[in-house]
């Protein structure tokens, strides 16, 4: 059955009729064309579909869209500025070669946005734990951690916008 919901997606309010059986992953990809949200397992094991719901990173594959009614959703598409400039996190992922096949990247960046938003400093081991909900088979996590470390440091040191 279709249900009309209202949610903010990447800053703009969407009023959508969605099937109650839809996952947020389905809705973001097929109704809204936000294909950065990747499907890798459908059971919350790989983290490729991670988006922020009211600022909290969740696996959108096991999150029903109707649950996001009245909430705010952020995906990687919402990070780049209108000038075309990348966000700091995105730029640092590029600079640190934290990207290989790129399939886990959008999800990891969303976790990074959440972590950085806490404006706290973390040790490398704490960061490992904080990204442990993402499986990456290309990088050994090494450069991802380098990027995370750098961005967390920058933001907690200098109050740079995420």
């Amino acid at each position, binding site marked *: *059955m279709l249900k009309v919901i209202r949610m903010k997606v990447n800053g703009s309010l969407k009023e959508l009729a969605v*099937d*109650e*059986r*839809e*996952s947020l992953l*389905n809705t973001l990809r097929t109704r809204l064309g936000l294909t950065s949200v990747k499907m890798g397992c*459908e*059971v*919350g*094991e790989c*983290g490729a579909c*991670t988006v922020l719901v009211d600022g*909290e*990173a*969740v*696996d959108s594959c*096991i*999150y*029903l869209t*109707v*649950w996001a009614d009245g909430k705010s959703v952020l995906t990687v598409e919402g990070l780049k500025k209108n000038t075309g400039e990348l966000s700091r996190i995105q730029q640092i992922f590029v600079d640190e070669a934290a990207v290989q096949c790129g399939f886990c990247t959008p999800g990891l960046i969303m*976790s990074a946005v959440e972590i950085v938003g806490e404006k706290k400093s973390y040790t490398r081991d704490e960061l490992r*734990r*904080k*990204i*442990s*909900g*993402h*499986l990456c088979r290309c990088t050994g996590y090494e450069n991802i951690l380098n990027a995370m470390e750098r961005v967390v440091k920058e933001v907690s040191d200098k109050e740079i916008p995420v």
Partner: protein
Amino acid sequence: MFDIKNYTEAYTLPEALEALRADEDAIVVCGGTDVLIRMREGKDAGKSLVSVRNIPELQGVRRLKNGDIEIGAAQTFRRLTADPVIRKYIPMLGEAVDTVGGPQTRAAGTIGGNICNGATSADSAATLLTLNAQVILAGEGGTRAVPIGEFYTGPGSTVRERTEVCTGFRIKRSDYDGFAGHYTKYGKRSAMEIATLGCAVRVKLSADKASFKEVRLAYAVAAPTPVRCPKAEAVLKNRRIDDDAAAQQFALTALTEVNPRSSWRASREFRMQLIRELALRTLKEAVEKARV
């Protein structure tokens, strides 16, 4: 897209209970991290879902006037870990649920779901056992409180009726006050893991912190259901905390109270080794915390 027959968003407890009663295929969903996965696997495909996510009674953590603590069933693991009451009075529970899956799972999964799915591997279960928690179940006939030790009836099964909603957990002040505890999760990975074995130890020390007044021990995956080990606990009563022989006896006694099985995940023998070793190590951690 999930194979859901009907979906009901309940905003009050009566609404949820009515929806469960009205549709024989209806099951409760909260965080979705178990139910949606079972649905996708085909196990619960075609069932109806009654969401209890938005029912006020299931939210939050409260410390009552008498010091008892009530935990709403819909509390996500992450919120539980961050909750000021939990951090202050039962940090061990927050730490235990912080070992579930990964950060995203912990943001969605709830303690109610963790207990109600009946798995012996539930990371909150062993700790709740050592806290003598009561499971609060609301049904058509009213509410009942089931001691968690009596809640599990077998692998994947509990005393909860399909038409009942778990609203939360109650922990008496006397069951947490003065105790400190530790939960060790042993898995093959350090994250995104289901416990090969989980061990919870809570200790209450004497005033001089030299001996045990009370010790509680419970395990996950050491039997078909989460299991408490009263005989082992009794071994350490009034023994000195540096009494290594007593600690060894404690661990050995635990072995008589468990019944792990062999599966492709781990052999019974290896689990027995872990049961013994983790009893010792977790006890040590718990004592460390109690002495702070």
